[in-house]
């Protein structure tokens, strides 16, 4: 009955998981409802209709979690070099880095520092997807290690909010080794019996999931986040079939026993504070 099938016309809605909406109104990526942008922003970039959680950048995330004015950033000026001399279609990685730094105002895909969460002093690392897809290279590894060392020095808990596509391939095996480097540093934190909370947000995949992000004392996630080791496309290519709905979502991870609980953005700070309080 093919002649009754309607061809799919129409414009594809922009993917507001990654780009900030412009203008007054936005169509929700998930429920397709039209939302007034201000309402959406006020709702912490969570769709007021369906509850879909959109991505926050590091600045928004810190604003969300840290008591106003209490954040002190560390190691702000660590920035990547191009250890391999990597080039893509004539564009040097080094040039792309500088371009991205200008565009985002960040030096790399993570911001680290200390701040208060409902008055409890905490070491916080927040990854930023807008910088090279949050990918982990030497700088991320080093900043996380320094954050861990600071946690130990000040005896304050550590929270890492992950948001990353995985290792940064432009830094080759250097980036791969950051997986070992961060996990190795975490053993020292464990020796000192200092709390480490890993917060997984959309998306957390590849080398980040397969290292520090998966081994928190407490590991939690925001709703509807994509979290997994291999990317969905890679898996589909390997097994040659379509993946079931909700595969590699936070809910999927909870069901299979890899996270402690899922928490909505509105409740995130309170829940974290409660955990920090309990373990202090």
């Amino acid at each position: 009955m093919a002649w009754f099938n309607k061809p799919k016309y129409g414009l594809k809605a922009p993917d507001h998981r990654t780009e900030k909406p412009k203008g007054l109104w936005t169509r929700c990526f998930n429920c397709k409802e039209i939302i007034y942008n201000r309402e959406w922003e006020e709702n912490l970039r969570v769709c007021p209709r369906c509850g879909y959680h959109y991505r926050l950048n590091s600045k928004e995330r810190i604003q969300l979690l840290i008591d106003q004015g209490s954040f002190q950033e560390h190691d702000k000026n660590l920035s990547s070099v191009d250890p391999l001399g990597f080039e893509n279609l004539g564009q040097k990685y080094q040039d792309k880095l500088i371009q991205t730094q200008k565009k985002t105002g960040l030096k790399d895909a993570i911001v680290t520092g200390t701040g208060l969460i409902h008055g409890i002093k905490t070491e916080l690392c927040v990854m930023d997807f807008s910088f090279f897809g949050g990918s982990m290279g030497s700088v991320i590894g080093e900043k996380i290690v320094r954050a861990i060392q600071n946690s130990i020095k000040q005896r304050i808990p550590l929270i890492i909010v992950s948001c990353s596509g995985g290792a940064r391939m432009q830094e080759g095996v250097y980036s791969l080794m950051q997986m070992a480097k961060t996990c190795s540093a975490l053993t020292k934190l464990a020796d000192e019996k200092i709390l480490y909370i890993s917060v997984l947000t959309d998306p957390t995949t590849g080398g980040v999931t397969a290292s520090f992000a998966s081994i928190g004392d407490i590991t939690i996630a925001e709703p509807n986040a994509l979290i997994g080791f291999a990317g969905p496309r890679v898996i589909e290519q390997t097994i040659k079939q379509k993946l079931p709905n909700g595969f590699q979502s936070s809910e999927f991870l909870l069901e299979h026993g890899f996270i402690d609980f899922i928490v909505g953005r509105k409740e995130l700070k309170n829940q974290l504070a409660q955990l920090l309080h309990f373990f202090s």
Partner: protein
Amino acid sequence: MAVELGFEGSVIEMDNQIKELAALEAEGDVSFQLEIQNLTEKRDNLLKEIYNNLTPWQIVQVARHPKRPLFSDYIDGIFKGFIELHGDRNFGDDQSIIAGICTLEEEKVFIIGHQRGRDMKDNVKRNFGMPKPEGYRKALRVMKLAEKFNKPIITFIDTKGAYPGIEAEQRGQSEAIARNLFEMSKLKVPIICVVIGEGGSGGALALGVGDRLLMLSYSMFSVISPEGCATILWKDAGRAPEAANALRITAQDLLSFGLIDESIEEPLGGAHRNPELMTQTVKEILITQLKGLKRLSIKRLLDKRYEKFMGMGQMFKE
């Protein structure tokens, strides 16, 4: 049947000629000694010339050579009294990782490694050397046993990567790898890791955190396969040779970066041409390395392991 690598030129042809001459000689009473000697010399010179100038992509092909010695060949060639230990005590026994106990000369050691298959049937059993979470958990269980009884660990790395599949995700591939990285960095026994073929990303690193990371000279170690990198950057897996170049995945490059500790020279024309010599070389190096590591106190060993990984990274520090 000989497997021909595109860049080996007339080497295989010469191999066949030498074989034919030897067969003829065995049949009759005419001696071809001189011809065989000449031809062998000529072939070896050619091999030397080719293998001294391999491009990274050619090295990838040698690392994936179907005749390249597998972990099982190293078990047979290096160690004595091997007893395999199966299962992760939780879910199952992943055959893409072999673990067990044996001796290296007089030394009792634990060995663990990725196992690929020789043929299709074997490869299906071994899942093409791509472990699932239970494989990594088996490895960790056995490593903890080594720690408990204070025996050194030697790992052999040879995988395209951890298996990307539905059940692997369901059972926590990420957590299994992360746990190994975490635990291996504080295991209180010497750990030597050798990349014998392909060292594919996190799936390889999950057996690669130790006191020494060694690579065979024509093996590779990479954050992503050259094909995967080419697909992401240029939407064209066919451009893998360029990606192999850009990713700096050879033992020589990684040694110059200080990311590995030693490059182990392979026999003329690659490990597949002389597996006996290859295993013998690896054996000798393992003995030397282990002797060196055993001289260190456990505290010193762990401190050095920690410092080694903390030093990995290149950045501007303003």
